[in-house]
């Protein structure tokens, strides 16, 4: 996973921020859900992926571990779609205060 992450980072310099983070995130989704998923920015995490609150929490913790960030609860509450999540992760990684 760490390795992947490094690759994604390198990639991001070329392709821009959005895509590699989304790739990481969909890989983590697959791990947590246990099956392959198709995600786009508009994918609703609860409605489209059928996650319950525990699933969301495990998923968020996996994302936090992967990027070595903590997503504050008020930020988590605002996240509805995969696009929102990518945005939050980018924000927190670039050191923008939450």
């Amino acid at each position, binding site marked *: 996973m760490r390795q992947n992450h490094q690759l994604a980072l390198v990639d991001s310099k070329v392709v821009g921020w959005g895509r590699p983070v989304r790739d990481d995130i969909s890989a983590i989704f697959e791990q947590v859900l246990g099956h392959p998923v198709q995600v786009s920015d508009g994918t609703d995490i609860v409605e489209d992926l059928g996650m*319950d609150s*525990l699933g969301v929490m495990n998923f968020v913790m996996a994302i936090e571990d992967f990027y070595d960030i903590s997503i*504050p609860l008020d930020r988590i509450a605002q996240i509805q779609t995969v696009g929102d999540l990518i945005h939050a992760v980018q924000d927190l990684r670039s050191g923008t205060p939450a």
Partner: protein
Amino acid sequence: MTILAKHAAYKLAYDELREHGVDPFNVRFDSVLSPTEGMLAGRRTILLGTNNYLGLTFDADCIEKAVEATRRQGTGTTGSRIANGSYDGHMRLEQALASFYGREHAMVFSTGYQANLGVLSTLVGRGDHLMLDADSHASIYDGSRLGASEVIRFRHNSPDDLYKRLRRLEGAPGDRLIVVEGIYSMLGDTAPLKEIAAVKRETGAYLLVDEAHSLGVLGETGRGLAEAAGVEADVDFIVGTFSKSLGSVGGFCVSDSPDFDLMRIVCRPYMFTASLPPGVVASTLEALVKVRAEPELRVSLMRNARRLYDGLGAMGFETGPEANPIVAVAMPNQEVAVIFWKMLLEAGLYLNLALPPATPTNVRLLRTSVSAAHSVQQIDTALAIFADVGRQLGFLGSDRRRAGGVI
């Protein structure tokens, strides 16, 4: 469509529960006879789920003090302490709490829920960082939302995850406040407080322990987990409730923080609600005397807890990780949980049906809480009822259907 239609999903789940012909969240007792018995649908029922750890709700001295104070000072204070003033009892109760914990300051709230709302929303504010155990009680989560601080959740009982998250904050301005519970209310597990205290020291954070279920239960003198773990000096704030081991209602916070009393003019859940009535204050004061003077209550409590925990374990039920007065039995799914609960009740045993989202990790629980006032015979009767219902539902014996790994 009504204004409450937005909660339709909850209604659906609730209706589903009630299809089993029971309403586990609306049990009506005809009367309560003692700390351990009530009348339910005309039947004598053992109470094994009421957090009445020391059985003090019917203590003759506590009742006498409450009656006497009510006669002398009336049924209520009809307002907050900043508006209507403090009664002698409020002051004495705060002194008694401070002295019990060996702390400089104590502040009394009208419930434990409000104590958490008040303390958490006041100690930290904008630019600060509140670190909550993921399995925290609703009042802790709600308190975190009332304030303006950033709220970060760490993995339940994981000092490593807590440490990692505090380390991520390195260099960021603001105070850090770690919040954990003495005994967690659903599974009865305790916080690894020694390790958490070490993280606190290393990272320069403050530490608050909610001893709601551990006051009067754990520790040499009943001060709770901080005492039992030998880390009281590392705990900056202790929050607790009068509604469990002390058999009344109300909440409190104690601390050595020098300017603690500032809370009285900034903490809204303290300022804008009526203070506790004299009768409640008087019985609580007396209950605190009992906690100090009757350590044998804790011995009986732990004897009963151990007996129930070991008995259920020996039958093959899956229980929580520690033998504490909260003993939770895992159920494989909601339907079995509801039917099991209903059959226990019909056999004369009352306990709590605990379902997600109130439970951690989506587990369905039959949650019991043991009292010092239970006789050994009552515990054995409870065990026999569990065995009987378990057998009927195919849990025990050759057709063992265990909840495999859900706790």
